[in-house]
Structure formats: C-alpha cells, structure tokens
C-alpha cells in the first residue's frame, strides 16, 4: 500500500508533531494580529506573514482547527458566518442488470443553500472496468476516488490482472474506517470483473453493503422508492437505464439537494458507456408550455445598427520590425 500509507499516516504525523518537528511551530492564535521581533518597535500592528507550518507530506493536519474556531468566533461577533464546505446534496444510485452495471447520478453541487456547480460530474473513474459515484463532501469523494484509483492501478500492474471490484471495495472501506467517518464520502462502487458484475455501497464510517441495487445521498429515499417498486433481477440494458434515469429523476424533483441533469454510466464486460449528460431534466431558461419549449433566456447579441454610429475614425498603426533574433535550442 505504498502511496497511501506514505501520505496518509496520520498517526506518524501526530507523533512527529509531539516530538518537535523540524518545521516552525504553528503560530499560536493570539499572535496572528502582530508579528514583531524585540529589536523593532512597531508603530502599527502588522498582519502576520502567513507562514503557517506546512507538514512535510500531505495528509490530514488538524492544526488549523484552533484557528478556524477563533475565526468563526470573530466572524459571529461581526454577524456573518463562514462559508460552508461544498457538499454534493446528491442522488446517486446503481443497479445490477443482466450483463453488467448501470450507475447514475445527478449533477448539482451545493454550498450551503446555493448551487455551486450546476453541472458537476459525480461518477468518478477508478479503473477501466470500475466506476464510483460519490455523495457527501465533494472534495472528499473526489480525492478518495483518485487515491484509490491510483493505488488500484499500481496494484493491477503488480498483479498483471484487471482489478476486481472487491479489491476497490476493500481499499475504500479500510481507508474510510481509518479516518473514522471524518472523510465525508458516501460512495456507490460498481464494476464488472472476471467474476461478473458487482455493486457496493460504502458509507463514510467504513461499512459496506453488497446489493443488487443501491442509492446514496440526500435524494436516496426518493430513488430507493423507485427501485423498490420496479427493480427486477436480470433486466435488459435499456430497462436498467430507464430505471436508473427514473430513480435519479425522482431524487432531482423531490430533493432540494439534487438537481440539474442525469449522468449515466453503463459498465459491461469489455465496454464502458459514460453518458454525460444522459438526460437534461432541467434546461436553464426553458419553460415547457403546453408541449412546446419556450426559449426564455435572453440572447444578448444585438444586431449591427441597434446603436447609432455618430462618427468613425480609423487610424492604422505604423509598426516596423526593428530587430529579429533567432536563438536555436541545443537539442544535441
């Protein structure tokens, strides 16, 4: 597990801090407002050069929690609140059909009450035969799937075989359990390997369930209702796509945290169909009125002549080539 244990050995990082790391100690909260040395007498309070100590490697460092608490206190005194972490409110789901897996996701990313991204991609690549939908904190799902994708590629090179979905599942659940739920990533992992199609749901604390149909995210209840009603084992591909599309649509229309378009990913043995978007359930500025779609958004290009032209003056710029040098690269 070379890459991930190297970067994410949280325990080691903690130990290093206690032993007195080689980095400068983090600035205590009180000294943020002024940073002076004994020699100089300050005439005014300077803002600290923010040389907060960076840990040598990536991974989690909880140093800034104290600073964040202080900042939040100060912000609340003034009356505003800190920006919320961007969550993907989300409806994601997956279903096993006769020949493989269909994964579906909506495309809305929210930041508190505001839609931060109207068309974000929630179906992440893990390996050529395995894809993963992510709900929860957008950054967590993005980075977690990228890390496991990287590790899985190394693993596949070392085994010489196409990776198995169970392997990806193990790696994800062990990583999420290690972080005890602090990584807010709820995932739907699906793929086809030598043992057939497999579908897993993975929760932020590290528990997994292997099921024929799963939904996750804030819209999962709405999507699950559709699945519970219409799922049948061994469906055809078109039926499965329609079912997933309807399940995500139920999430989009009945859950505030989900919206915009529907992305699908159909994985079969030897083929992956990444359909983005599969269905534009919500077109911006188009109101469907009695069967016909009215274009409501303005077209802000104005015809020539809309504004009257009073005078016109054309001045050609005289440019002459003064000097021309050619420097050849030493490519020997």
């Amino acid at each position, binding site marked *: 597990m070379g890459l991930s244990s190297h970067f994410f050995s949280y325990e080691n990082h903690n130990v290093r801090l206690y032993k007195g790391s080689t980095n400068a100690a983090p600035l205590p909260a009180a000294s943020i407002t002024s940073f002076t040395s004994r020699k100089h007498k300050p005439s005014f309070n300077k803002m600290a050069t923010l040389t907060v100590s960076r840990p040598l490697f990536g991974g989690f460092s909880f140093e800034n929690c104290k600073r964040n608490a202080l900042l939040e206190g100060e912000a609340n005194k003034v009356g505003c609140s800190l920006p919320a972490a961007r*969550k993907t409110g989300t409806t994601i789901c997956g279903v096993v059909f006769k020949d493989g897996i269909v994964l579906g996701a909506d495309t809305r990313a929210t930041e508190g009450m505001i839609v931060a991204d109207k068309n974000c991609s929630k179906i992440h690549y893990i390996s050529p035969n395995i894809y993963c939908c992510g709900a929860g904190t957008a950054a967590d799902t993005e980075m977690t799937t990228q890390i496991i994708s990287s590790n899985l590629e190394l693993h596949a090179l070392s085994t010489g075989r196409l990776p198995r979905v169970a392997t990806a599942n193990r790696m994800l659940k062990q990583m999420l359990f290690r972080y005890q*739920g602090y990584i*807010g990533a709820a995932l739907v992992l699906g793929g086809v390997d030598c043992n057939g199609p497999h579908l897993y749901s993975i*929760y*932020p*604390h590290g528990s997994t369930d292997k099921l024929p149909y799963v939904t996750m*995210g804030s819209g999962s*209840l709405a999507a699950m209702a559709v699945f519970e009603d219409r799922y049948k084992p061994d469906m055809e591909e078109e039926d499965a796509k329609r079912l997933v599309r309807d399940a995500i649509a139920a999430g989009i229309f009945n859950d*505030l945290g989900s919206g915009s378009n529907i992305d699908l990913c159909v994985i079969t043995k030897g083929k992956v169909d990444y359909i983005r978007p599969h269905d534009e359930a919500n077109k911006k500025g188009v109101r469907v009125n009695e069967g016909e779609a009215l274009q409501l958004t303005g077209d802000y290009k104005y015809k020539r002549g809309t504004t009257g032209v009073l005078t016109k003056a054309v001045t050609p710029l005289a440019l002459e080539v003064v000097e021309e040098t050619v420097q050849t690269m030493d490519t020997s």
Partner: protein
Amino acid sequence: MRSGTTLREKMAAAAMVPIFGQNVSDKYDLVPDWTSREVSTGTTIMAVEYDGGVVIGADSRTTTGAYIANRVTDKLTPIHDRIFCCRSGSAADTQAIADVVTYQLGFHSIELDEPPLVETAANLFKASCYRYREELTAGILVAGWDRRKGGQVYCVPIGGMLVRQPVSVGGSGSSYIYGFMDSNYKPGLSKDQCLELTAAGTHCCCKACWELPSTVIHTLYHLSHSLYLSVSQLCLWRWRGDGSSGGVVRLASISEEGVERRVLLGNQLPKFSTH
C-alpha cells in the same frame, strides 16, 4: 459531518433509549440528518449450542438513524470454515473487526496446519474489542464447531468481555426475548428444536416491535406496489420498541458436516404463540 448533538440526543443517550422519528434540525439543513448518522446494525442476534454443533440466527436490518440502509443484511459472517460471528452495533466497526480477525485466524490456522478452535477466534475478537473499547461499538457472538469441544457459543459484548454460554442473545432487540429464552430453552435440545427456537426468537423480536406484523406487509405487497410503499413508509415512522430489527430472519447451523444456511421471509414465520 455534523458534530453537534441536540439536547434530545443527549437525553436519549443518557436514557439509553433510541431516538424515534426524524429530528427537527435547529438550522434548516438541505441534507437530512440521517445522511450524516453512522450506520448501525440495530439488531437481534442469537446463538444456541446443541450436541454436535451450534445454531445461529439474526435479523437483516441495517439502519442510519431512522432510515433502513439495507434490509437484507447478512449479519452472520463467516470467520473460518466452521466458525461464524454474529455482528451487532456499528456496521463499520464490526465489519472492520471481522475482517481483521478473519485474517488473523486464517494466518494462525495455516501456521497450525489444522482447523482453528472457536475459543481462539473468540479470544481474537476479545483482544481487538477490549484494546479499542473506547473507540468501538461492537457486540459480537462467536459461534462454531471444533473437534476439541464441539459446538460452542462465546459472547463478546461491548467493552470486550469474553464468556462462554450455551445460549446467547445480543443486539438492541435482545432485551425483548430474554423472557422468551428463559422459558423456552432447556439444555439437551436437538438441532431442529434449536432451529425453531432461534427462528421464533429472532422473528419474535421483529414482530413484537412493529405496528403491523410483517406478514401483513408482505400480503399488501402482493396486492399493490404503491400501497406497499405507503405502508412501509407508515411503518418506518411509527414503529415502537425495537424498530431496529426486522427484514428477514437468517439462520445458519454449523456442525462437523458443514454449514447450512437458511433465510426465512416474513410470511414464513414459525407457528408460535404463548397462548
């Protein structure tokens, strides 16, 4: 992840009572609260020894808060060929512990070059559960068969105690069947009697705690799908007692010959009544 606990949650935690219904959040939250709750196997699990093996049973429900995340969970996890564990408590914790113990026991068995003892498996569970007792929420029953002592059941509850018992129940639903077990169990039962006892006990927990018995739900399901959805919606929000147990009843019997697994659906309840 939301870290604040409401007063209601704190009181509920103090009273050791599960919180029913949906929490009304203080701040308007776009994402409902059950998306941030940890997944728990509310659970009823049981294990019974008989001469020549053990019978284990469990319900099949995993919940996140008031939402059922998985209604067909398999809480009877194989640790080795003739050793199983029944998991209750936090799903993530128990899955992780079971994976660790499976690895340790497999390694140990290869070193030994013979099938491992149930007592060894139980002690491995105890070692993990006791060492990390502050961080874990895991109640486990270890049951299996080995050549030395035959069928054995070991109980490793939250905190990491280890004790061998001929009959053991666990999980949040177990409190409802202590009386049933006390009156119906006697030593020297045959394998079929044990199977019936386990099935009845586990099902009794699921049944006693719903407003509508699950047979009614399944009948309604055949009538009309939409009605079924609304009924299950009703049940979801109006359950009393241990609504954390339910779904189907999974049974397994372990003996020298092997492991037989069975699933009892809601309408296949054993005919059981105290009157």
